């Protein structure tokens, strides 16, 4: 299921592979993100790893309740998980990627990189891994 990106929106994605998040920090960050603390948010998809070894899919569409679903994958119990983990946001132009990056960095371990993809970059979501799992962007 696809949907278009408006001219005044941007798509931002950020690799979280190898990061293991503190659930309480993730809750706080997820609440803030979906409530607009980092700018207007239209859609979010993320797959995150948390400290008990489970992986979660987070999704949000403007006007709807945020959803959090545990993925049916094995718990990663030794070392840092090397399966793909990522957050992707469709946001308004007031989006604050530095604030989001800083929050993610604190909630887990340092990030490896981040990048901002303008809408003109289209849907080049390489390195998706199992992000393809019900990915809607």
């Amino acid at each position, binding site marked *: 299921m696809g949907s278009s990106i408006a001219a005044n929106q941007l798509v931002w994605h950020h690799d979280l592979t190898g990061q293991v998040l503190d659930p309480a*920090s993730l809750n706080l*960050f997820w609440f*803030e993100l979906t*409530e*607009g*603390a980092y700018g207007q948010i239209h859609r979010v998809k993320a797959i995150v790893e948390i400290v008990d070894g489970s992986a979660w899919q987070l999704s949000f569409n403007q006007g709807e309740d945020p959803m959090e679903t545990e993925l049916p994958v094995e718990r990663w119990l030794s070392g840092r998980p090397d399966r793909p983990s990522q957050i992707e946001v469709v946001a308004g132009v007031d989006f604050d990627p530095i604030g989001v990056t800083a929050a993610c960095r*604190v*909630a887990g371990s340092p990030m490896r990189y981040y990048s901002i993809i303008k809408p003109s970059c289209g849907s080049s979501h390489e390195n998706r891994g199992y992000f393809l799992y019900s990915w809607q962007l």
Partner: protein
Amino acid sequence: MKIAVISCIHGNYEALNAVLSDIDDHKVEQIYCLGDLVGYGPHPNAVVEMVRSLNIPTVQGCWDEDIIEGLNACECSYPSILAEQRGKLAHTWTDQEIHPETREFLAQLPMTLRVDNLAFVHGSPNNQHEYLLPEIDAFTAMERVLGTGADVLFCGHTHVPYVRDLSDGLVKVQVKRSGVSETATQIHVAPLKRIINAGSVGEPRHGRPNATYVIYDPESAEVKLREVEYDYPKTCAAIIDKGLPAIFAWRLARGLEYAERAEDPTHICER
């Protein structure tokens, strides 16, 4: 003789001014302050100077304590790593910003105040960091009030104002002692007690950005929970201008209920 009780100003000078004006309109004879004059907000020195110049009897809050004694709260005071990191940023900023006389004023504040049958504390009589939430077990709440010897306990720290009456308390106990064959039965009756939370002047968390405080009439025992509008965008702009985390401005503008408190509100750090 009515009193006003204010708490948790958190360096928000705009909010404090608006609340003081509102107090002026209510023919209040005495103001008390329950601490946390600094932290999170952009004007810690101005707030302390105002409270000091008005000779407002004030108890020390957890932020005031941390500023004078060094950040001593353990990670258990924070609900998450993210909240802890932001708390530390605000602490460091405030620590660098405040003047020596501000620090001296905060250092000499008492932990509790007693006036007639009223007690004033920041968090709870046990600890500045303890949250007396409105839903806390009634017997626990009663224990906190009884611990002060007062009938009315004023507290803050939760940033959401409330009044809680505790009445008709009764506990039946049976005691068997070594060497005594019979069992003794005791009936304990707890007297009527009240907890009044003054909310927060400078960082409200009741869902709106307005400052909150309370007015109390000791003669009639009437309590008014006051909510006062103020120029919060000005404070938000100052937060960002001064280099404090922008998320504080966002939170302030929303009066967010997402309180930054530890999972177990009655947990007391041993440090």
